[in-house]
């Protein structure tokens, strides 16, 4: 663009701006709701993170100036963040960097299994001439249909060392096949890692919460993938068959590229949800043993409800926010999810 005068560049920008108005009108209703319901509270949260907000400041009301002088929390700058990142919080077993590493391992393993199982099962259910498809599909939404914390409580009870279903199941297997697996494993309390080497920072309870969360998470991916599979015209597979493509080739050359636009958003959101998956960790392992299955949000929750350190908890949420933001931006770079398809 050699020789374009500044004024004409400004003109073209104005033209673009005017052309952007229409699309923004489509976005506006959703944008306004999000602004009021989600953005303002989050902004308040950001302010809290820089104060030493404690229980005595709860009567502070942003909209009532009378409460300002008496109840406004003191401004402390970055002190909360400094304490969080340098492990200076008075919580048992607290180590920020271990928490972060665990949180990332937790998210990656979960999302991997959710997507692989979700897409795999959607494909199986989609195969031609399958009998009982509707019954399978209806049964498979059940983990999603039950209230999340009910299933979390159920899984916790299933891991009970004395009366839990897992140990009872092992007993049945022992009786049936004459094996002798232990039937009194304390699934959520054993500190000795089941797999050594580089994975020795993962206690047995990690595999337990992982299994529970896989159970909870894949039906969502199956539903999204089922919808996406419908967008693929049958003719493509027929044409590929005529050209002599194998099933595996058809999967990688047709199915994967064509369900990708629909799966990418689900995967990005799945990553955020799993990263902040509170119910499963809090109700099943409770972060144990020795805080080794604690994730960042459960730790933030403990800061609020056990220590009543609202300011520190807000700062903690902000740290979680920035980590997720970085992950999402990297994700977006790789998957190009925000690009307009027909740009």
């Amino acid at each position, binding site marked *: 663009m050699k020789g374009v005068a500044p004024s004409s560049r400004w003109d073209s920008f104005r033209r673009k701006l005017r052309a952007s108005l*229409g699309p923004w009108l489509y976005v506006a*209703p959703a944008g306004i709701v999000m602004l009021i319901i989600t953005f303002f509270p989050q902004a308040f949260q950001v302010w809290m993170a820089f104060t030493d907000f404690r229980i005595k400041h709860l009567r502070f*009301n942003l909209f009532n100036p009378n409460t300002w002088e008496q109840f406004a929390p003191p401004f402390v700058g970055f002190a909360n963040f400094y304490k969080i990142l340098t492990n200076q919080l008075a919580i048992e077993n607290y180590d920020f960097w271990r928490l972060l590493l665990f949180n990332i391992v937790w998210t990656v393993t979960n999302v991997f299994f959710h997507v692989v199982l979700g897409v795999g099962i959607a494909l199986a259910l989609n195969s031609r001439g399958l009998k009982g498809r509707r019954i399978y599909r209806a049964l*498979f939404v059940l983990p999603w249909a039950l209230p999340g914390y009910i299933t979390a409580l159920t899984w916790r009870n299933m891991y009970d060392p004395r009366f839990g279903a897992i140990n009872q199941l092992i007993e049945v297997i022992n009786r049936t096949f004459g094996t002798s697996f232990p039937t009194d494993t304390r699934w959520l309390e054993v500190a000795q890692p089941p797999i050594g080497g580089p994975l020795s920072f993962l206690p047995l309870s990690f595999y337990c919460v992982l299994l529970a969360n896989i159970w909870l998470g894949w039906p969502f991916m199956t539903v999204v993938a089922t919808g996406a599979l419908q967008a693929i015209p*049958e*003719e493509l597979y027929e044409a590929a068959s005529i050209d002599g493509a194998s099933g595996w080739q058809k999967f990688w050359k047709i199915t994967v590229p064509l369900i990708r636009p*629909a799966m990418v958003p689900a995967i990005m959101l799945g990553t955020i949800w799993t990263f902040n998956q509170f119910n499963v960790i809090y109700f099943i392992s409770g972060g144990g043993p020795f805080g080794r299955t604690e994730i960042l949000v459960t730790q933030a929750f403990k800061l609020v409800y056990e220590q009543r350190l609202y300011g520190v908890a807000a700062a903690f949420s902000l740290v979680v926010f920035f980590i997720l933001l970085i992950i999402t931006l990297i994700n977006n770079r790789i998957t190009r999810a925000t690009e307009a398809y027909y740009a």
Partner: protein
Amino acid sequence: MHKGKAILRQIALHLFLLAVTAFVLFPILWIVSLALDPRNIDKPLELRLIPPGASLHAFRKILFEPFRLLCRNPSDISTCMTFSKLLFNSLLVSLGTSVIAVILGASAAYAFSRFQFIGREAGMLGFIVLLMLPASATLAPLYVLLSQIKIGGEPLRATLPGLMLAYGSGALPFSIWNLKGYFDTVPRELEEAALIDGATQLQVFRHVVIPLSAPAIAVTILFGFMSGWTEFILAWTFLENPSRFTLAMALRAMQGQFATPWSEFAALSILMSIPVVLLFFALQRYIVSGLAMGAVKG
């Protein structure tokens, strides 16, 4: 030879799907067994679907007796909530959430998918970014904010429409991203043809894009419904009048006591999953709509 291969494939598929079914049903059958157990225990003592002395008493109690924990006036049983009233509130909130998520979401997603405009990428990221602060942390500020907005002398926070808005905004990021991804796969040529035939942009959106995106719309409705159906923390903090309580809140109320009535707790959880499965059954047709066309041709 070819036919034998097809039968083998069917058998393998069913073996796989039955294994998945077993995995899915194992914890659920456990909840069923609790609901049938008259002993009110928090876990069955042995692996049996039908416990000794099994009865439907818990289901009967939930369905036909008033909830003594949720009353406007605890001494007057007629002011207590019943299953049908709770169900009505739950349906209202969940369907309202779905409507907000689908209508506002589809509109925004269409712009993000079809137009090249200033701030598009930032706008899309903006919606998802708001999900990243842990929800539990925003409860208190949202409470303060929605208490300031008054409708008919009542704070918006304590009303069911307020709850719908809060859940709807939680469901919007998924709704927008999911629909945008699907709209991307709808061929643009169809829209262009309609535009040439003299349809307006809005007509194209309503009569071409929306019908072709039925699977993604159905998934979004289901998702919006689910987020309103099972949430209780926000509702518990915001609502004051028991006559507006939802089923998820009733479930929570049972756990708050000295001794949880486990059988009723389990029975209510099972009853709560039924409408979701029914909704899924109703929507399934749309989620798998393309399949029928393929089957006719094949």
